[in-house]
């Protein structure tokens, strides 16, 4: 069929108007579980909605990613204006059962051991190299991405609170998080356009040694039981979706 005829049919009967494009702000994001045993590399944008997270085995939903196709943003243009990275503990309700059932871990569980999960989180936020490849060509390489390309969103903790059960030593409580100010994110200038179906490879590498180990670092409120907290890391491209009008 002649492409001109196809164009005419599409213009008359198609569900999208490819002669006019709409620009809207949008994000392409992917959050994955960090291997608690440590790893040399975490890959992003590999597993779309509906597929399983390779570490947790849990099916990915729009809470973790809006990728509909592995390693590609599909049939739309995307203009990247910011790169953001994220690392944090999952909500308590999504932690292992021992943590879900505990009644006093938020203000002591992550921090009360000398070698605590929050210390490991602090290590994580200071490490890694983010590599972004488009069509197998390296476009961005960011050392210490949680510092140089922080999340730019978060919460404010005016007072961390502290609680400790029946122990001689009382420790301060603390929370470590990526910078939550939006002006701190990694802005792209010039911006980077990613065309439809371009292959995207994003990885967080730990070349010197594996990522911080999170196994059994948190102690629960009986001061004896330990658990391995679930940690997620994420990469967010903020920018513009360019798509045909309807």
């Amino acid at each position, binding site marked *: 069929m002649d492409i001109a005829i196809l164009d005419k049919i599409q213009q008359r009967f198609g569900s999208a108007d490819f002669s006019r494009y709409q620009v809207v702000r949008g994000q392409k994001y992917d959050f994955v579980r960090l291997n608690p045993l440590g790893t040399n590399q975490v890959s992003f944008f590999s597993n779309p909605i509906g597929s399983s997270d390779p570490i947790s085995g849990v099916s990915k939903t729009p809470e973790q990613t*809006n990728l509909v196709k592995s390693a590609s943003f599909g049939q739309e243009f995307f203009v990247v204006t910011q790169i953001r990275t994220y690392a944090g503990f999952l909500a308590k309700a999504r932690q292992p059962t021992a943590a879900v059932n505990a009644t006093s871990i938020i203000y002591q569980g992550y921090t009360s051991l000398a070698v605590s999960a929050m210390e490991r989180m602090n290590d994580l936020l200071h490490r890694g190299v983010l590599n972004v490849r488009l069509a197998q060509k390296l476009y961005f390489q960011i050392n210490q991405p949680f510092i140089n390309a922080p999340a730019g969103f978060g*919460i404010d903790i*005016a007072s961390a609170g502290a609680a400790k059960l029946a122990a001689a030593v009382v420790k301060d409580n603390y929370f470590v998080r990526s910078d939550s100010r939006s002006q701190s994110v990694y802005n792209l200038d010039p911006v980077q356009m990613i065309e439809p179906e371009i292959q995207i490879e994003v990885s967080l590498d730990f070349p010197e040694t594996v990522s911080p180990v999170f196994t059994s670092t948190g102690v629960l409120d009986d001061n004896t039981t330990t658990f391995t907290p679930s940690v997620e890391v994420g990469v967010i491209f903020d920018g513009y979706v360019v798509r045909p009008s309807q």
Partner: protein
Amino acid sequence: MGFQSEAVVMAASQQFGVIDYSRFQAIRWQWYGFVTYPLAGASELNFFGNAVGQGATTLADTNLPKAGSFGQTHFLVKSISTMIRLRENDLTSFNRTNVATADQRSLSSDIIAGFVQAGVLTLSIGARPFATIPKPFQYAPPAGNEPDFDGSSVSDPSATPLGIVTAQVPYATQTRNRGNLYRVDPNILIEAEQQFEVKISFPSGLVPLLATGLSPAINDTTNPLKVGVLLDGVLLRPMQ
């Protein structure tokens, strides 16, 4: 008299109508919708699904004149915000005597390790998605600012057994950095009577409230925890 064309209708409207559709007035405006965040969590919260006056919906919950649309006005969306409010927040429940259940004694638990750490917001207009925002209570924070909070450390040397100490009442909020406002750039125009939908979903599993030990207790009726979405922008309405 039978009107047979748009031109005739327009002419009649200009001569005899109460509204002048050829001139529009622009004012800054905020549309907001709050719903109760249930104690057990929810798989989906739908904002702007009720108009003011519908059921038990008051002006504290929404100022929407019509469910799912802005009625006879256009609206240019310039930013999206999320908000959290608790009618009566018990800050003193977190203390030395109930340290064993500390997680349940402060709303900060839900900010630090609860639903604020989860969820995804979607804005759809005419069933077409226009925004998908992960962790929306963080990514799209309030347009305003929480009150200032300053606390001092507390320790009780007479506590028995020695060492049971609570230091500092925890206090956490959505970010107070107004620079983090989620700006809709380019702006989105939602035309009059256009159907739209804003919802926050938790498809990876319910996230129940953690602060279940406050006094008065959070419940779904007399002391509900409300979460809201606010659309800030420019309202365009015909002159009268």
